């Protein structure tokens, strides 16, 4: 009987796939939009794309010349795209959203910095129309300023002497002494700086031989970050709840169109009918989870490192989502009322579980007291860990927890629905 009912429902879903496709498309579109908003290289190393900004060098000294050159070369050039402009032109381009920010090196910056006569300031004008790139530049500039400050504190007297050199006032002998002294200081500092005692690697390295083994590092290095991969699990968890509601609503549709009543004229026991709807919900959610996580993963280049674990977690989560939405559907009679109620709860649970925003960014109360109890958060976090954490992920407990919870809720829902239908109260 279960097979007959399930085959009928699957055939109907296949013949009328639009409601399913809508809920499948929305999370994929959101992932694509958000991922694209952060640049087409979101799957690359930086996840940000190159940051284009202007440098207005009003000082135009040999030192600022060195800084300009450094910003556009080698490693920095991979992430940064500085353009050197007049202030007016740069401001116009910021307003036109062509630049993320403009950095002004004020006149007299080199002299004041080297001599220490006056405190020096670098000016950063951020593009208010952008959020992430200006923020990154601000952080980078803070690092540069801290570095310059450290240099000034440790090499204060020496730097004053270099000012004379930059102004062409020192004789060659004096310049040679300064270069030799700077070389000595660099050599002395090198033993402290190289190799770094704490570092990280973006790619797992080949096992080192004993002769070439480096000093111990803080970790073996996390897998590369993938913004699409970060977004996909949370959104999939949230929209699987909506899809679960769509499956459960079919029971209410059958009540509205009279097929449930007709079933009751043929079969006395309603349990097979309710159970078949639950199984149908789980089967549909499994198919949808496969499309969302498997298809979405292929689409966005998400490399699931442990497909078996992802599949097991997804299957357990599908059981939970079906049971949870069935339970919500059983609480409220009437298709429209139940639909609205269940969708609001699904959205609230989805958001509180980190479906749309990272859980760390949620308000304190939610983050500390609600989110940790939500199975969609367990699911999302486990997939994130499987994707990005180099450490082994204990996903078995999470899978069993979701499975047990889902089965329990499904049992409660079946009991309540059957009671309501037998009393003629409607689905």
């Amino acid at each position, binding site marked *: *009987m279960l097979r*007959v*009912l399930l085959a*009928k429902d699957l*055939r*109907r879903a296949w*013949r*009328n796939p639009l409601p399913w496709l809508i809920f499948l498309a929305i999370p994929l579109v959101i992932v694509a939009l958000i991922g694209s908003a952060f640049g087409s290289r979101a799957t690359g190393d930086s996840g940000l794309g190159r940051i284009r900004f202007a440098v207005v060098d009003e000082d135009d000294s040999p030192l600022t010349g060195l800084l300009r050159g450094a910003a556009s070369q080698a490693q920095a050039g991979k992430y940064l795209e500085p353009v050197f402009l007049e202030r007016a032109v740069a401001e116009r381009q910021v307003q036109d959203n062509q630049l993320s920010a403009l950095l002004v090196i004020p006149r007299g910056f080199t002299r004041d910095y080297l001599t220490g006569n006056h405190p020096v300031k670098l000016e950063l004008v951020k593009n208010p129309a952008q959020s992430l790139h200006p923020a990154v530049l601000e952080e980078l500039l803070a690092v540069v300023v801290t570095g310059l400050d450290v240099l000034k504190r440790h090499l204060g007297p020496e730097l004053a002497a270099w000012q004379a050199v930059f102004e062409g006032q020192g004789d060659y002998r004096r310049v040679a002494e300064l270069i030799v002294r700077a070389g000595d200081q660099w050599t002395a500092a090198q033993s402290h700086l190289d190799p770094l005692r704490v570092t990280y690697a973006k790619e797992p390295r080949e096992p080192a031989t004993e002769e070439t083994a480096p000093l111990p590092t803080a970790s073996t290095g996390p897998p590369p970050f993938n913004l699409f991969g970060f977004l996909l699990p949370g959104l999939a968890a949230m929209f699987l709840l909506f899809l679960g509601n769509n499956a459960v609503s079919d029971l209410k549709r059958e009540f509205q*169109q*009279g*097929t449930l*009543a*007709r*079933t*009751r*004229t*043929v*079969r*006395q*026991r309603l349990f097979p009918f309710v159970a078949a709807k639950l199984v149908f919900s789980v089967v549909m959610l499994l198919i949808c989870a496969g499309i969302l996580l498997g298809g979405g993963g292929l689409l966005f280049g998400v490399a699931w490192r442990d497909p078996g674990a992802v599949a097991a977690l997804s299957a357990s989560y599908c059981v939970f989502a079906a049971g949870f939405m069935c339970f919500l559907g059983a609480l409220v009679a009437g298709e429209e009322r139940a639909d609205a109620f269940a969708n609001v709860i699904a959205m609230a649970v989805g958001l509180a579980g980190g479906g749309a925003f990272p859980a760390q960014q949620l308000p304190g109360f939610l983050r500390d007291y609600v989110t940790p109890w939500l199975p969609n958060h367990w699911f999302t976090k486990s997939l994130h860990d499987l994707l990005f954490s180099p450490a082994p992920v204990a996903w078995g407990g999470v899978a069993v927890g979701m499975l047990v919870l889902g089965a329990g809720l499904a049992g409660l829902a079946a009991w309540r629905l059957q009671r309501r239908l037998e009393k*003629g109260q409607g689905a």
Partner: protein
Amino acid sequence: MDLSGAGRALRCAAVSLLDVQRLCRAFGPLRAVEDVSFTVRPGEIYGLLGPNGAGKTTTLSMICGLLRPDAGEVRVDGHAFSSDPQRAKSVMGVVPQEIALYEELSGRENLEFWGRLAGLHRAEAGRRAAELLEALALTDRARDRLKTYSGGMKRRVNLGCALLHRPKLILLDEPTVGIDPQARANILEFVRGLTAAGSAVLYTTHYLEEAESLCHRIGIIDHGRLLAEGTLAELRERLGGDRVFVLEGDLRQADPPGWPGFRDRFRVIQRSDSQLVVAAVGSRDPGVCLQELLALPVKVENVTLKRPTLNDVFLQLTGRDLRE
């Protein structure tokens, strides 16, 4: 006609496929069905005739187990429904008033599904579906999805889905609502054929013509009460014969009970300001009756003699026109 006598119930139970005794059901203060009793025998089409809201669907819902009666008993094929509901359900086929089918599935798939649900094996359900599609003249559209069918075709599939398991008792709840006369005629012809194999049919309708032309016996129900039942001839007999007289004219001041000798010779079936419908008491010659009516102390513009219809019976029982 004794509608609730225990003696008659015992007599009928032995031969009837459906025996309904003193069925009652209330929805809050509304008494939807009150003390309804009737039987349906093998090979018989029993019509439950009444206007919308009369209690026909509520009665049928209690018979097929969709609603629990507040009081009364339903016996199907000699067994109390409540003692073994699944057995009773396996004996009956129910055609609901609404088209309770899956629009995404084809006609054949719908038939096969309801056959499987009724307990048929896959092959048997397929065979029966093919037979019914042929009988309902739907073979050429069997593979099309139901949403592409006309209203009449959907009604035919709706009917067929209750017949897959060859039920002995068929309950039809207004199966011809909302379809054109041709489609209705096809369905009525099909229903007539169902009794040939000995099936009993309970047919609810508010169409007088259907009840008159289709049903062997008719129960007239209104406001939840079964007012009368019997064959068409028996019901007509309630009016005093096979003819009624319709008097037309200005009858605003008329006082039929006060006319000398009127109450002994005629029975008023319906009266309005411009029309008076009466039946003759006893089997008197129509010509004599006509002369007596023309001699009444009222100015009559026209007198018509006609065969009484079920509507006249309904009028006499309720004071209302069934078509209102």
